Each structure stands twice: as structure tokens, then as C-alpha cells.
């Protein structure tokens, strides 16, 4: 999996490419929490080029969402393939995680 990170002040945007599973979730968790230690309060995760997610990936996103909430920060997810979005819905994560159609929509959210 490739992770491209863009930083603008308190906002960090992560563009994910490939597969977020038990093999790659730890690396992503580290990048997310490093960004938060570096002062990121708001996070966008761009799923446009993400082909696959498993419960290991959901776990990292849940952990990051809870950590950001404690710091009064916010997380937004965008541009998911419909079958990736379905996983968030089955898990019930869509009820507390904002998922918007495009990266522009996500940027407007901050």
C-alpha cells in the first residue's frame, strides 16, 4: 500500500493506494499517529485509489477517530468505492464517521 501525506497547518490529508489489510494497517496507524503527535488536529483520508479494506483497516480508523475526538479534532473520509463504503456500513461505522463523495467536499468540511 502507498500512503501519500499532505500537510496544511493542522490538517493532514492521507491518500491511500492499494490494500489496507492486516499486512499494511500497522504502517498506516504509525503514519496517522505520527501526524497527530506532530500537531495534526484534523484528518482527511482519501479512499479514491484504495481497492481493499479489512477489519484491520477499520480498527486503525476507529482508533484514530477516538484519539482525534479527545483532542477536539475531526476526521473526514472521502471518495470511497461503493464496495469499500459497504464495509463501513456493515460495520456500522458510517453512523459516526462522516463519509463524503469527493476530496473537495472533504476540504470544504474544515
Amino acid at each position: 500500500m502507498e500512503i501519500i501525506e499532505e500537510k496544511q497547518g493542522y490538517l493532514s490529508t492521507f491518500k491511500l493506494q492499494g490494500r489496507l489489510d492486516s499486512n499494511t494497517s500497522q504502517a498506516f496507524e504509525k503514519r496517522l499517529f505520527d501526524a497527530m503527535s506532530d500537531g495534526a488536529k484534523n484528518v482527511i483520508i482519501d479512499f479514491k485509489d484504495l481497492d481493499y479494506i479489512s477489519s484491520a483497516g477499520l480498527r486503525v480508523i476507529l482508533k484514530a477517530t477516538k484519539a482525534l475526538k479527545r483532542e477536539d479534532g475531526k476526521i473526514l473520509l472521502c471518495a470511497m468505492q461503493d464496495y469499500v463504503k459497504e464495509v463501513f456500513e456493515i460495520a456500522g461505522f458510517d453512523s459516526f464517521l462522516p463519509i463524503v463523495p469527493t476530496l473537495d467536499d472533504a476540504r470544504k468540511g474544515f
Partner: protein
Amino acid sequence: MTDKTSLAFELKNSLAELSTLCEKLEGVGEALGLSRRCLFEVNLALDELFTNIISYGFDDQSEHIIRVCISSDDNLLTVVLEDDGIPFNPVERRSRKVSGELEQCKVGGLGIHLVKNLVDDVAYHRCGEKNVLTLKKVIEKS
């Protein structure tokens, strides 16, 4: 693999084998003309079960083999996972309650909850010294 054939392969008890699983399934998807969504759902269900097996199924440090057998009959895909680990029935574990609240949301049991929602049937049998999981999914073609 055609409409009424099967494919069998073996995976070692290592997370790195998730890529092998993915490659094999892509071949199956192509041979059967599965839709991307259907292939994704089968891959995710097998990933969760495989990850479960290698995380909880073995109480030693030795290498183990998990056998995968995929067959199709018209519009039904059947996948059998077989391992020689300790008796472990993931299906029996109560599917977690989906909570709409962030603070109440726990991750335990999430994998098996996904499996139960992604395939049409999942069953566990202990056969001799082996755990056998059988998944059935109605095929959606592209």
C-alpha cells in the same frame, strides 16, 4: 476454472499469505467472470477467516498449512478452509452488535460480523483433527 470446476491451494500460517490469497482469488474472479464487488466480498470474508485462524488457531510456533478449496456450481461459489489448529469455531462467536455510537464502538468480533454479512452461508465443522469452515456465496457476474 470453468463454471463447474474447482481449485485447491495451500497457504502457510503467515499474514504475508494474504497476498497469495488475493492473487489466487483474482484468477478465480477472472475465470468465472465475477463482478468486482463479488470478488471483493469473497476476498474480504476469506481474509477475515484466515487472519482469525492464524491469530487464534495455533498454540505452537510451528508452520501450519491452511488448505483452501474453491468450487463453483452454476451461480453458487463454495469455499472450504481447512486447518489443523486447535478446535476453534469462529461462527459460534456472537456477531457483535453494531453500535451507532463512536464511544460504544468496539472492534472485537468485527471480522466475523463482516463475514456473516458478506457471504450467504458460513458453517463450521470439526472433522477429526481439523477445523473445516465452509462458505457459500451466490455469484454475481460482471
